[in-house]
């Protein structure tokens, strides 16, 4: 099967609507298709991977924990908009430490999260074959 570049564009926060969790469900399934997968977090989407989410008070599933499994699924390109973080008074240190083990580098643990500027994101997006927006 041909390999295409798939980008998942996440622009909404986690719990106000269903889009974030149903996006993650697609990503987990997509992993089985061995395509080139990357996730972009822009606008309020950056809140999806902020550290310290606790859903005990709202009776909903805390699926933020599931992002930690993405490395096992060989999904390790998570691009976060620097501008979106800054607008919201956030920085990289507010994000969950999401990692993967690099098969080509003696299974060294590496960060899956990369904070990128709009200019960098522009270049990454231009390379995509399919963009799924949530």
């Amino acid at each position, binding site marked *: *099967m*041909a390999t*295409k570049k*798939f980008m998942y564009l996440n622009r909404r926060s986690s719990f106000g*609507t*269903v*889009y974030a969790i*149903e996006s993650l*469900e*697609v990503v987990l*399934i*997509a992993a*089985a*298709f061995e*395509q080139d997968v990357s996730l972009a977090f822009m606008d309020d989407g950056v809140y999806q991977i902020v550290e310290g989410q606790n859903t005990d008070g709202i009776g909903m599933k805390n699926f933020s924990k599931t992002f930690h499994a993405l490395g096992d699924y060989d999904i390790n390109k998570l691009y976060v908009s620097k501008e979106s973080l800054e607008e919201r008074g956030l920085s990289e240190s507010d994000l969950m430490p999401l990692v993967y083990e690099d098969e080509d580098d003696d299974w060294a643990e590496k960060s899956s999260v990369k904070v990128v500027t709009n200019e960098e994101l522009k270049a990454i997006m231009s390379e995509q*074959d*399919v*963009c*799924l*927006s*949530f």
Partner: protein
Amino acid sequence: MKFAIQVNEGPYQHQASDTAFQFAKAAIENGHEIMRVFFYHDGVNNASSFTLPPQDDRHVVNNWASLNIKDADGEPELVVCVAAALRRGMLDESEASKNSIEGNNLHPAFRISGLGQLIEAGIQSDRLVVFGD
């Protein structure tokens, strides 16, 4: 050209499924192929055979059915995501009986399947276009 379409919103609440339908219709009329329409999120509600709009309103579900989007074997290529559908009470006969629920509401022009069908559509089509909120 071979198109795939993803519809993320239910009918009547949001214009997305109307726009997606008009797009699909125009594509077919201009000689293109719609290889699959994938209904996700509240978009699964586009497949309800229980839909009864007033007579002076468009019938979104029948509109989709009228496009007659099928594969070479005659299987519907209006595909409803199973996980999203079960969450929202959209069932075909087999899901209903599997879960001991009486009645089912999936319009026969549609079929229920997994999210893999969306990824596959992205791989096999020339263009995938998303319609949503």
